[in-house]
């Protein structure tokens, strides 16, 4: 019998150490650079934070739930996050950005891949309680790529994927709630968002394209 290794050596020889895949590394680097670029710029307007705080008063059970989750999940240190993670608007916008980022991972963008709105729209029937209006906006520079179901802010959302040159735009649609954030532009972690409501539906367009592109998209979609 040769000399016995110590436990560390024996474990390192016997047990695998894994390497994150190149795709995962590239994606993480991209996320990191977005944050690093974003870190000095203000995330959301003071008005947004204020109105969120006011709204929070009227829905304290949810705010309390978030707070409990934050404390349970992250310990006392998370309280330093102040209003950013506990305000309802920030919660939704952060979740939307997460959903958008997830959708960009390989194979996640679409459940139904089609530029034909007559294929995409019926696909949602029976999968959500809403019928999102589906338009192909190719002639306005926003080709319809497809649709999928997503889960945001505690409910199912219909998500329509549109292209804009090299960018993707996700349009999330669900039924309006009692505490609808104000219509308008939001920016979170380097992503642009545009929110509007119409006909009992709440719309959130999310993209890494410039805010002006989302406004053009809104014009094209709502025309």
């Amino acid at each position, binding site marked *: *019998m*040769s*000399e*016995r*290794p*110590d*436990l*560390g050596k*024996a*474990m*390192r*020889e*016997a*047990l*695998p*150490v*894994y*390497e*994150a*895949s190149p795709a*995962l*590394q590239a*994606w*993480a*680097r991209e*996320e*990191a*650079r*977005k*944050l*690093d*670029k974003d*870190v000095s710029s203000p995330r959301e307007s003071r008005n947004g934070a204020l109105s969120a705080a006011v709204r929070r008063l009227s829905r304290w059970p949810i705010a309390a739930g978030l707070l409990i989750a934050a404390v349970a*999940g*992250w*310990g006392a*240190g*998370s309280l*330093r*996050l102040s209003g950013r*993670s506990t305000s309802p608007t920030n919660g939704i916008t*952060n979740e939307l950005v*997460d959903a958008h*980022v*997830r959708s960009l*991972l390989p194979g996640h963008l679409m459940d139904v891949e089609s530029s034909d709105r007559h294929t995409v729209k019926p696909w949602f029937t029976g999968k959500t309680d809403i019928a999102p209006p589906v338009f192909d906006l190719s002639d306005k520079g926003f080709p319809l790529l497809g649709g999928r179901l997503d889960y945001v802010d505690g409910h199912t959302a219909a998500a329509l994927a549109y292209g804009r040159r090299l960018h993707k735009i996700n349009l999330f649609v669900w039924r309006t709630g009692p505490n609808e954030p104000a219509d308008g532009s939001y920016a979170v*972690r380097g992503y642009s968002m545009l929110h509007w409501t119409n006909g009992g539906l709440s719309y959130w367009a999310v993209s890494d394209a410039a805010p002006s592109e989302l406004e053009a998209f809104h014009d094209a979609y709502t025309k």
Partner: protein
Amino acid sequence: MVSHADKTVEVAHADDPQAGRFERAVLPHLSAGFTLAMYLTGNKADAEDAVQEAILRAVRYFSTLRDEDARAWFLTIVRRVCFTAYRTDRPQGADMVSIDAVGPQLVDSREQPDMAVERLHVQQRVRDAIDQLPPLLREAIVLRELQSCSYVEIAAVTEVPVGTVMSRLSRARARLADLLHDVVDFGDVA
């Protein structure tokens, strides 16, 4: 031009001049996080999802990282994601990767054949022994010996006091010593 400000010097020495604070602090630990996720979730797909989710959370909560150890901080997030998202809905026992399934075969081709066989046999016994440890002991010993974490780091990652870490490690070593003392040198413990 070398600046007197530490931060500037640090940036100048970074591998990639474009890399920002998050990238330099967290990304070097991506594979450590992935390895931990592999041991906690038991499969590659869940481990990748967990690390993705952990990165998203890390981005969101990066402002809470002060002067702490970024690796321990990131591993803590990975572990939390694994436990909340992938652990609770799994039957007991299926929640950790079976080490048997994935072991590398580290054999030096210059070795005598019987030596190589002997070595494979030892590696298999080490995997079996680690597999038999209760999950919390296994997690501690894997972080210690495989990821070279300090006691303080393991305490941070697993969210228990350092004393608990030390007792888990010594219990893990004692159990492993029972099983492996003839092939592994445990020093004073054995």
